[in-house]
């Protein structure tokens, strides 16, 4: 199934990007994680209708994407995935909140419309922040950081292994699915009647694979003990990155820049 193959490529695309070498890539994974988190919390802490005050926040993705040479194509493509639910929830604002926010050229614009676009815009900002984080942080550094933050080791190892096996299993599933579709007359998907044995078959194969993986791990001395990479110290550049990516936006959250400009002019 083309859908599954493209998923494998999607994972791979971000992974490839994270291997890059830019000023952003070189920063400590901790500061990248904290920076993304602070940014998202700031973005969503604005009120629904405060569209304008969010405008300067666009600098975060634009500047970081340019510095890290992350192509927009990937991020925008991923963005489409997050949209449907957000659009449904946001569209309700247009319907339910009809009070006029302002008129422009005689056309009344409602608070609902403003908040609808505000939600879409915020989705864009949040999604880009997360994808950027992954695009500039190699997976191994990310999980290493999680371990240092005392996320249970069982969980982090599980996370690493699932990440790896998604590719393998999608491959298996897509081969089975293709074989099924080639023999079915209706080209719409699996029929309910076959769902149990198809998915069940995939599951049992997965279990058999799990057993072999476990054996292969044991053969290389696996005992479930915590493993860690070399410790990495925070460099001055890391602190600088944190300050540069967080402070301006914290300031923008506390101070209404637009209002300041208005007072000035």
């Amino acid at each position, binding site marked *: 199934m083309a859908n599954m193959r493209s998923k494998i490529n999607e994972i791979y695309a971000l*992974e490839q990007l994270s291997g890059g070498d830019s000023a952003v890539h070189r920063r400590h994974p901790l500061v990248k994680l904290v920076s993304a988190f602070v940014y998202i919390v700031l973005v969503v802490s604005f009120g629904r209708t405060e569209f304008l005050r969010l405008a300067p926040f666009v600098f975060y993705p634009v500047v970081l994407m340019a510095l890290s040479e992350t192509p927009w194509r990937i991020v925008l493509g991923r963005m489409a995935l997050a949209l449907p639910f957000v659009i449904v929830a946001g569209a309700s604002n247009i319907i339910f909140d009809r009070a006029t926010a302002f008129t422009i050229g005689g056309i009344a614009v409602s608070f609902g419309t403003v908040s609808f676009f505000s939600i879409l815009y915020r989705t864009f900002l949040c999604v880009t922040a997360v994808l950027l984080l992954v695009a500039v942080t*190699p997976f191994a550094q990310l999980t290493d950081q999680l371990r240092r933050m005392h996320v249970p080791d069982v969980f982090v190892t599980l996370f690493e292994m699932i990440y790896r096996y998604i590719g393998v299993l999608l491959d298996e599933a897509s081969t089975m699915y293709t074989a099924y579709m080639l023999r079915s007359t209706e080209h719409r998907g699996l029929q309910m009647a076959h769902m149990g044995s198809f998915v069940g078959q995939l599951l049992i194969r997965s279990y058999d694979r799990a057993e072999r993986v476990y*054996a292969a791990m044991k053969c290389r001395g*696996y005992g479930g003990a915590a493993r860690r990479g070399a410790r990495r110290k925070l460099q001055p550049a890391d602190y600088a990155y944190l300050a540069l990516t967080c402070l301006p936006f914290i300031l923008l959250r506390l101070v209404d820049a637009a209002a300041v400009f208005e007072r000035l002019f």
Partner: protein
Amino acid sequence: MIEIMNLTVVYPDGTKAVDDVSLTIRDGERVALVGANGAGKTSLLLALVGVLPLTSGTVSADGLELSKKTLSDIRRKVGMVFQNPDDQLFMPMIADDVAFGPRNYGLGEEETARRVDGALDMLGISHLKNRSSLKLSGGEKRMAAIATVLTMEPSALLFDEPTAFLDPKARRGLIGVLKKLGQSQVIATHDLTFAEEVCSRTILLKQGRIYADGDPKILFRDEKLMDDCGIEAIM
């Protein structure tokens, strides 16, 4: 040196996968393990590293007998390369997979890094170090899987169907690598011309028992013998 004495492996459902096998593999010797599907090749290999429990008999590597206590040491001495590299490669990056063994054995990061680079270099796949196994070719995956075992610096290597998933060129590369490695090797395979080129000795298995033991160039051309084992002889 691997010594196997009267080894029998019975599965919980009663199937006798390995039946009274005795065998000595000398240092640096490359031995092919040949037999029809279900003849017990994989079971024998898995028993040697204690993944399958021994029902009776003994196994020892470099004089160390396999038991619960020595399991971890044996696995360090005897490295197993599984049939499907996807079973062996599970970390996000090849470098992590290759470092998995040494890290588990508590070797420091410096030593681990040295071994990782050494193994990748030896197999000519240094460029794959920071790649994900998701997008490697069959041949690259095979080499990476071998590297994950080499970093434990074992004295013997076990291979289960190493030519599976390989195209002719990758198969040729593998032959070169196996010949270059100094360790004793036990190679379970259906690929007779491959076995002939790499190994100086062949064990023919039939229903879990040793049916013949000798020079592959002679055994593989014995039509009657091969037919008995359910394999097509080389004409």
